[in-house]
């Protein structure tokens, strides 16, 4: 099989640069395979994160030829033969070493979000939800926490507003809670004040890179922004809706998720 050329960023907090590597390719090979081959045969200390090698765990996020991607799902044959493939760490997060970045900020954002708070169970001890009412929430819950959307979002990446905006990943986490038919917590004020929904200007770059094809902006962020606006301008409408929703939870016909 053909030999392929790679430029892989090597370095740490203090700095670094691209190093050239050549790898024999084999059918079906993905970028992560190539990185592993370098690791096993040429540089055993080359740092990279991975677990599932099947697009399920969100560990292996890097930037390939400048685009945020899962390295385990990016096949070499997507790039023309002879083209050098560059692999570098996510830019939005501080480098630890080589392709590994410090993503702990994301875990801190998650912790700030008020947890799920379910209402009462039905008399038979079960919660009831209709499939159509949870389709949307399930879409958000497909998130594998790869943080590619966080990496690409210009509010975090270019403007560096990590203290003001939780980023697209956590906007859809919020949406998954807010649209959960059983949830009773109210997170709207914080979505506006603390989590920074207003900072997103709907460029949809996050949606474009999401490997799970979650409609982050259209289905998650925009509805949240609407909820903020509703609350802000029309508290009465909000109260009516809230009561209406409550009574619907009890007979299991809630349609909150089914926008």
């Amino acid at each position, binding site marked *: 099989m053909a030999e392929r050329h790679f430029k892989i960023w090597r370095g*740490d907090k203090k700095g670094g640069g691209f190093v050239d590597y050549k790898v024999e390719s*084999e*059918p*079906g*090979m*993905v970028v992560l*395979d190539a990185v592993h081959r370098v*690791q*096993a*045969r040429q540089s*055993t*200390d*080359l*740092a*990279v*994160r*991975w*677990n*599932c*090698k*099947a*697009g*399920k*765990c*969100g*560990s292996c996020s890097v930037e390939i030829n400048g685009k945020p991607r899962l390295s385990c*799902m990016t*096949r070499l044959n997507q790039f023309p033969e002879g083209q050098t493939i560059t692999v570098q760490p996510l830019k939005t997060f501080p480098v*630890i*070493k*080589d392709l*590994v970045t*410090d*993503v*702990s900020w994301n*875990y801190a954002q*998650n*912790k700030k979000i008020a*947890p*799920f708070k*379910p209402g009462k169970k039905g008399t038979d*001890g*079960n*919660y*009831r*939800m*209709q*499939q159509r009412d*949870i389709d949307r*929430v*399930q879409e958000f*819950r*497909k*998130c*594998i*926490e790869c943080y590619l959307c966080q990496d690409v979002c210009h509010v975090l990446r270019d403007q560096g507003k990590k203290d003001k905006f939780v980023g697209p990943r956590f906007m859809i986490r919020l949406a998954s*809670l807010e649209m*959960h038919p059983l*949830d009773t917590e109210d997170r709207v004020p914080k979505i506006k004040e603390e989590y920074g929904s207003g900072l997103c200007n709907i460029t949809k770059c996050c949606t474009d890179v999401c490997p799970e094809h979650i409609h982050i902006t259209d289905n998650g962020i925009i509805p949240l922004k609407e909820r903020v606006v509703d609350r802000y301008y029309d508290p009465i409408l909000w109260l009516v809706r809230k009561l209406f929703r409550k009574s619907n939870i009890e007979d*299991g016909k809630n349609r909150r998720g089914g926008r």
Partner: protein
Amino acid sequence: MDISEIQTIEHDVLVIGAGGAGIRAAIECARQGLNTGIISKSLLGKAHTVMAEGGVAAALGNVDKRDNWKVHFRDTMRGGKFLNQWRMAELHARQAPDRVRELEEWGAVFDRTKDGLISQRNFGGHRYPRLAHVGDRTGLEMIRTLQDFCVHQGIATHMECTALDLLLDGAPPLARLAEGGRVAGLVAYWRETGRFVIFKAKAVIFATGGGGKAWRITSNSWEYTGDGLGMAYRSGAELIDLEFTQFHPTGMVWPPSVRGTLVTEGVRGDGGVLLNNRKERFMFKYIPKKFAAETADTEEEANLWLEGKEGARRPPDLLTRDEVARAIKKEVEEGRGSPHGGVFLDIASKRSPEFIKKKLPSMYHQFKELAELDITKEPMEVGPTMHYFMGGIRVNSDTQETSVPGLFACGECAGGMHGANRLGGNSLSDLLVFGRLSGEGAGKYIKKLQGTPKLDAGQVNAIIRRATDILNRESGTNPFLVQEDLQDVMQKYVGIIRTADELKKGLEELKRLYQDAGKVKAHASPQYNPGWNAAIDLPNLLTTAEAVTRAALTREESRGGHTRGDFYFESEEWLQHNVVIRKGKDGNMEVAKVKRDAPPEELRKIAYASLEELEGVKVG
């Protein structure tokens, strides 16, 4: 080294592993008011549990009202070829429904039935649709739910922190550890910096998963190097049932880079069928006597079952995993395989593209993106892949305590629950049930504990020296190459069907590999250094490989996930025994054939009852 200079963190309980079992255990510890810490090799939410696809088994009875814990228990025992620890299988079947409902209370969003209840799907060996699921990403739903719940329980999570070895109070230094003592803590290192950390703890819970990384073709990730088994073994705990290794019948076989990656059993549960290169549904030829009464023997009947026709029996494609894996191996060996050495798995001709994309979205993407194949149009190519360890650390069935006081184990790294073969979906439920019980067990242990266990500086130093030697050596072999070598040995000599000759050759090879592993060298600094990390894992992987091989050589019969080419039958004698492994006083591995306790009469009756007797019964 003066150990007061090493970072020290103190907890009542330290949980090793942040998969489903570890997080569930930590939640239980926190509930009891214990100061709880949890460490994991990877980031939170990335453990194996996240990869589980098909579902979590629990007799909720939402889809078929006839289901109840007794039928689940019976299925589990039959699937395990009656070698399961009876009490564990009982606790599991009884408690799984509550554990699943509890997840819903914590925010999990399972697929629904028409009545709005948790939906359940069919899976191999389960009599009724029993697996609560979310499409084919159930593990993700489960781990995210646990993770999001856990971070609000005051549990300290230490990520990318790898455990090296236990510290025992009242035991001689590391070299001769197998001589007793109680848990005092554990030494670990941070991946990021390569620095060491001492955890002081009154109790430690292992939830480290299996050791599938000892094989070349596997669905397991780099984390599965049998660390829990190795650490437990070195500190004197016993291992049980290690000969039972599950080769999942359907792993990807093409392209080479994804060889071994799992194709969920959900494909067959939702209607997919296995075909050989003559387009025959070959599984009809491989129905064993004991399942004949409950398995469809014609394609017509199998099709009726798929349509949900009452009374139709399930297709043989859904026989237990050991049966299906052996059948595939046979078809391939006899020249009826697919172009790349597997067989075909076809759902395209059985279900509509919309159905497939809705029920099996990640399989659809996995094949589309990694194999450039559209599973709604073409059959997949699949073959057996090393998947799961039935065996593991031997524990008390009720408390999950090992033979080392203060050491507990749960999840895949613990043995006994699944006997000779695990049913699909029974692992995710196992994690929840026994994760919780181990937390309870550790709580009770700590309540009764007298005095504070003392750390021993000699042990700490010996553990650290072992790890730093790898860096300090002048020169040495590449750890990744030794690991690959080991994988080839296990793949070759300890496969789906084993013989004494092969196993003995395997042991010879392992002897050589122990030598090689003692000479590996990691280059550069310890900071996030995968070569060093892999070198550190090697002894655990080797202990695991040796234990599996020795156990396999000892059990002279074929049962479940252990098939001996030279003893191709089930033996009454071996039904009465488990293989137990421990570190001997001389430092060598001791293998014992241990007589099993007679089962409680009530459980025995249920396990051998006819279905009619159990279907009507109220859940008791």
